[in-house]
């Protein structure tokens, strides 16, 4: 085989086959008659089909009404399900059958001859245009806007300022909350007890056995102002790990208590609650985008799109053996944001 191009590979543009300057509108093709146009039996059949579809719709409506009166939603799961199913089927048959009947009727029985309606020119004729300009000019002259300068200034000012009553509140609402520091802090403070989510009872260190997982909120959370927002920032996941597998950075040695570690439950990727804790691997999986954190190794990212470890809550125990926070988190919780420094 040779790689030389042969004449068959080349498209020849000679004078005869050159592309035209402008394609002609090919217009409509020849009209093709439908079976029903020539065969009365076929037309009759189509008619019967359309009638059957409308009939189906009537049946659907009757079925809906029967279901409404005979099968009331009695409050049990089975009753509500059956009622929903029958009402839905009836409604579907009633509406959908009308739709397909109308389309089938139009397609098979109504005229299908193609018609062309050319657009009329949009430009008005010269006399109309001149008359319109004359009316405008007369109006401007009558208002005297050309010679009354103060009036002109007043109307321009009023019209220009009026939108401010819409724009100022709109922009004001957008810019109403510039308190960025609230993203840096949660309600955790020194000595605040760790409590169970959702019932709010404090947790003793002795209750957290190896392999356990506790979903934690600050004690007395519901007394906070905007407590749901505060909960969204302060939720913590706490586990107790075998000291043999727990790796801790030297500066964080005293942030845990006998293998009990507490980390923010808010993913550093986009802020989903990370709570799928796999006890055997100590991995914590985020259900949204599969970021995976190693609870035994500072909650560092081992898989997925998150790029920072979960912030750790320093904890200790009080005199009665209850777990308490040593302080707030030492870094902002949750995903990155503009003002976050790192």
């Amino acid at each position, binding site marked *: 085989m040779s790689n030389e191009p042969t004449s068959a590979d080349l498209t020849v543009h000679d004078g005869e086959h050159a592309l035209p300057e402008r394609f002609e509108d090919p217009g409509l093709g020849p009209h093709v008659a439908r079976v029903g146009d020539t065969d009365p039996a076929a037309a009759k059949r189509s008619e019967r089909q359309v009638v059957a579809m409308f009939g189906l719709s009537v049946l659907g409506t009757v079925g809906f009404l029967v279901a409404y009166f005979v099968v009331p939603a009695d409050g049990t799961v*089975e009753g509500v399900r059956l009622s929903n199913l029958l009402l839905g089927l009836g409604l579907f048959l009633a509406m959908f059958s009308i739709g397909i009947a109308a*389309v089938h009727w139009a*397609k098979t029985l109504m005229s299908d001859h193609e018609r062309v309606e050319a657009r009329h020119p949009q430009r008005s004729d010269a006399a109309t245009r001149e008359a319109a300009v004359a009316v405008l000019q007369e109006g401007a002259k009558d208002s005297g806007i050309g010679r009354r300068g103060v009036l002109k200034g007043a109307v321009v000012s009023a019209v220009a300022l009026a939108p401010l009553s819409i724009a100022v509140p709109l922009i004001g609402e957008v810019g109403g909350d510039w308190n960025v520091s609230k993203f840096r802090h949660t309600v955790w403070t020194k000595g605040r007890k760790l409590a169970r989510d959702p019932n709010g009872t404090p947790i003793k260190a002795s209750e957290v056995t190896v*392999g*356990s*997982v506790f979903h934690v909120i600050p004690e007395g959370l519901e007394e906070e102002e905007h407590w749901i927002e505060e909960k969204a920032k302060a939720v913590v996941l706490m586990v107790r790990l075998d000291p043999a597998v727990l790796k801790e950075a030297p500066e964080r040695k005293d942030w845990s208590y006998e293998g009990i570690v507490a980390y923010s439950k808010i993913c550093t990727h986009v802020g989903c609650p990370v709570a799928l804790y*796999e006890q055997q691997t100590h991995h914590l999986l985020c259900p949204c985008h599969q970021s995976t954190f190693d609870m035994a190794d500072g909650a560092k990212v081992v898989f997925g799109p998150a790029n920072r470890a979960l912030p750790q809550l320093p904890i200790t125990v009080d005199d009665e053996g209850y777990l308490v926070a040593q302080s707030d988190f030492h870094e902002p919780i949750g995903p990155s944001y503009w003002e976050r420094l790192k």
Partner: protein
Amino acid sequence: MKAIAARRHHRFAPAVLLALALLLTGAVYAALAPSAASAAAPSESDIEAGEALFQANCATCHGPSAEGRDGVPSLIGVGAAAVDFQVSTGRMPMQMNGPQAMAKPPQLDEEQTRQLAAYVASLAPGPAIPTAEQVDTTDADPANGMAVFRTNCAMCHGAIGKGGALSEGKFAPDLSGSTPTQVYEAMLTGPQSMPVFNEANLSPEDKRDVIAFLEEQQAGSPGGTDLGAVGPVAEGLWVWVVGIGLLIGLSVWIGAKSS
């Protein structure tokens, strides 16, 4: 016999007969009924039978004295609850290695499971199999169960306990086929990837409420099919493939010329 017959009209005869009948009933009951004591504390013979079953079915992996080895957990101190959960759901004895032990038809019958649990419980104290009262949901509060389930369980098992995916081929199983005892045992012992929810974390009442919440889900969805109740993936697939597909099909039909 003549002497007895002569005294059958004695005025103490009914009392004596009644006393004899009561004694007889008591003796028959004691001989036939399973005593509460033997159910709570398994006999030596149960433990021996359990050890034989252990050596035959479990010792290959868990070791002859249940000490475990690398990658296989020790069974000392896991308690009867862990054995009953793993064996009654068919997860153990394990059929093959994989991301996690799969549930399958139980390999040992109830009696053998009880004996095996008795043997493992005799090695060291551990969580016991919950009693019938502990899993009785007659007075339970399913609303509290829902709150507890939502915080502690729903992230893995899904909003109504139909299961969900974990990492690397592991998954949280569907809970609709689990018995109340198995659900209780799983919370108590934390099988495989699942963490432990001890009695101090979720109180026995909380656990009972969770079971009641799961029982309420057995009635199904009032809105019709729930598409597996596994969340937006199944629902999105249905809408985008079936729903949009139907719309496209109808559009093509409306636009096509009739023959």
